[in-house]
């Protein structure tokens, strides 16, 4: 069919020009064997637009909607007053408005006054940012930094940094697998799929306890072939909110060392989980202190509210400075055909905030405030549910979990009930984002959860 239409097209086209040499204007449609030819006048000559034959995209289906962003869309479409958006993990104030950190505004004003230029960053990103981010993660006096064993490359927030790490694995460890927690952030799978890195899961969430299946986790890590990359959430596990204890982290490190695996941390909530930057980085620092070689992806989307600026970093802590240099050069080589060099704006904001002592202190205070609000909301939610629910179910997991999210233990039907009956928008796996919850709405949410849990199966 395509060739038939093409031949008609070429018959109409004179051999010396790629357009019809008709002088008069002609507007209309001609149907030819199912295809449509359109005639339109343009700059004094007739050109023929063949509407159908050259489309390559016949077989291209709609991609599945992103489950998390789809929630926000559905929420926006809902006209009910009592609706609540507990889908995306983006911080909201008590008034449920987006929050721009004061330090960010101050940093941006400084940048505007200075009239910073818009030149390309080097492939590895802004040097001041890279230095600041590695020190924030590991501590400025960390031996790994002093010994120059840390290769840091600015990345496009957590996703972009993870993708760089995945690309490094694909190139230098072909065939190696990544072990990811069950469940994990949905985009982890997409990232490794598109980077063509095979993955499988280790047990993590125990629905019976709504807590960590530690034994299962250790078993699965042990069972993986030697040299597997183990993806770990540094703090505030997404989506469950369930983190290992410090003792459990030690054991996880033990088994990873025994099996010669390589740990790959995703640190998206440093400072946001407990309110303390150092405390939230404890797991990563533990591994590095043991002399292990570690990959770490960082994001400033949540802790600096820079979601839309796409600022993060990929760090590789290796055993020597020489090897760190080599690895950094390869990370750059992988970034070049992805985007050439990273965007400058977010990097400057972070570098200014972290690099200016007054701003840095202010940031720490704001972060404590944000983390504190979430802790308060957790407490209020727990109190509301406990007082309303007389069934004797243990809801204390709400308090034990940490970070923006809570795995409620609700199944898909129950989650649907939350949305359909109560206009509470959340993901189908039972995850709610406490960042989108206000103290004022805790009672309402408690009612919704209790109803969904007990009355829907």
């Amino acid at each position: 069919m395509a060739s038939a239409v093409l031949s008609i097209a070429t018959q109409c086209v004179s051999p010396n020009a790629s357009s019809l040499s008709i002088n008069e204007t002609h507007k209309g449609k001609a149907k030819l064997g199912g295809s449509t030819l359109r005639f339109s006048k343009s700059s004094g000559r007739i050109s023929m637009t063949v509407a159908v034959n050259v489309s390559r995209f016949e077989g291209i289906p709609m991609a599945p909607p992103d489950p998390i962003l789809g929630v926000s869309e559905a929420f926006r479409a809902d006209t009910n007053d009592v609706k609540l958006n507990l889908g995306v993990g983006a911080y909201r104030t008590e008034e449920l408005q987006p929050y721009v950190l004061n330090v960010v505004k101050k940093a941006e004003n400084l940048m505007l006054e200075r009239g910073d230029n818009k030149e390309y960053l080097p492939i590895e990103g802004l040097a001041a940012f890279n230095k600041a981010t590695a020190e924030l993660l590991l501590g400025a006096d960390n031996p790994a930094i002093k010994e120059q064993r840390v290769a840091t490359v600015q990345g496009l927030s957590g996703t972009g940094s993870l993708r760089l790490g995945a690309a490094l694995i694909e190139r230098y460890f072909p065939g190696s697998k990544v072990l990811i927690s069950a469940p994990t952030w949905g985009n982890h799978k997409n990232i490794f799929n598109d980077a063509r890195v095979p993955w499988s899961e280790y047990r993590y969430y125990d629905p019976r306890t709504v807590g960590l299946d530690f034994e299962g986790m250790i078993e699965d890590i042990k069972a993986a072939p030697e040299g597997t990359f183990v993806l770990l959430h540094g703090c505030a596990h997404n989506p469950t909110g369930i983190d290992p204890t410090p003792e459990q982290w030690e054991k996880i490190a033990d088994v990873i060392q025994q099996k010669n695996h390589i740990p790959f941390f995703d640190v998206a909530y440093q400072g946001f989980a407990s309110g303390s930057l150092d405390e939230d980085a404890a797991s990563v620092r533990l591994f590095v202190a043991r002399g292990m070689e570690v990959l770490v992806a960082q994001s400033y989307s949540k802790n600096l509210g820079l979601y839309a600026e796409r600022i993060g970093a990929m760090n590789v802590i290796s055993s020597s400075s020489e090897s760190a240099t080599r690895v950094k050069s390869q990370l750059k080589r992988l970034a070049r055909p992805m985007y050439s060099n990273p965007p400058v704006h977010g990097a400057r904001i972070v570098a200014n905030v972290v690099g200016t002592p007054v701003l840095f202190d202010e940031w720490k205070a704001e972060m404590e405030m944000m983390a504190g609000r979430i802790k308060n909301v957790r407490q209020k939610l727990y109190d509301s549910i406990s007082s309303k629910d007389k069934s004797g179910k243990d809801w204390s997991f709400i308090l034990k979990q940490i970070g923006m999210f809570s795995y409620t233990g609700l199944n898909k039907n129950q989650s649907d009930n939350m949305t359909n009956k109560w206009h509470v928008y959340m993901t189908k796996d039972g995850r709610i984002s406490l960042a989108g919850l206000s103290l004022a709405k805790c009672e309402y949410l408690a009612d919704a959860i209790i109803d969904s849990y007990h009355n829907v199966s």
Partner: protein
Amino acid sequence: MIMVVMWRYFNGRTARRFVSTCSGHGWWDKVRVAPKNPIVSVNESFLADPFPHKVNLAMGTYRDDNGKPFTPQCFGDAEAKINRYTLEETNSSEVSSKFVMESVKLAYGNDSFVVREGLYAGVPALSGTGACRLFAEFQRNFYPDSLIHLPDPTWPNHHNIWRQAQIPVKTFHYYDPDTKGLDFDALINDIKNAPDSSIFLLHPCAHNPTGVDSTEEQWREISYQFKVKNHFPFFDMAYQGFSSGDLDKDAAALRIFVEDGHLVGCAQSFAKNMGLFGHKVGCLSVLTRDIKQAAAVKSQLQHIAHSMYSSPPIHGILLVTMILSDPNMKEQWKKEMKIMANRIRAMRTTLHRNLEDLDSSFNWEHITNQVFGVVILHICCFTFCLRKQIMTLVHVPNSGWHVLFSGLAPDQVRHLEKLFHIYMSPDGRIRYAYVEKIGNQFFSHGRCDTKQCKLFGKCNSSSYKNQ
């Protein structure tokens, strides 16, 4: 109990020490140092050179009279206006949609049929590189056995991008080193001889690295041949407005193809024409048959982007959207762009004249014949000291993403470096956006000397002899 504690203590200490020495087995032993980027190496040599009057012609971003990076004034205004409160996800995606619409209007024309009817799938991308990469991954997903046909030569990163997307590359004839112009016949032959339905990458204006572009008639012929063979044209448009100073003129090739009924793909970059290098603003658009297909293709492109970086950085997108949708700002931008383009054109002409005046036996006509084009690989960092220096090595501000294929051979390039402290890309490409008269003069001397030393005729300039 004490024994247990002591046991644990010693065991732990020993284990840690053992691990510290053992970790030297090195996961990354097999990771080699990446080959150095040739332009970056030149830049590093330049920086290391203590000679006070050194000149760097390798990289290319625009500089003003004082050698400072130049940001169009319209951006200062736009920056001040950006209100960060608008950055919630809702508005983020709304801004993105607006941005895409303004971008495609720019590329395809305000009154373009495809834009009016929504017959395109468009997504913001991480500048030109990101747009090309998105398309390459998309190509791989849906045409896994296809190749990409790249012009010879092309921006080197094109090769990296498609290779990283695991798509094999084939090149087609483009540059004729003898004429320093377009090898049109060979190009047409390659188009004809490629298998039907091949995917080609084309530079619609300001070809990078050669600066050599097709004429309008040649474009029409290429479009016709593409129709005959049912090839897919993918345009990498990184210099719209910058090449001739006129946005519509620079997009003519793209629009010829669209008029002829091709459903093209197009990567746009706002790095050069808006000076937004560091903000990584670009757009990928793919024309489709109907809006349903547009939605499907867009969803697939978004999916690929999602696995790479989730969403693009908003700041640059906000700037561009603001400027393109505000008629006053847009006019201001167009004016500033014309100034930059004209300045480069003037320099080219001056350089050519100076070279001819110096009576060099080498034919420099190709300098003005080449379109003020792009070979934006890197920055020409010339510091401009016209008023301080005469007839000697001068620093000239240069931020040319306009590039000149000088025709100098690698050994001549090295000669220039050693003798005159002039640094340029090893293949003889130079960028210059701002070469003042005297700078030109000096520069010409440099090159004439090279010619004389090597293979060409004598340089008779007395001023040269005085140096």
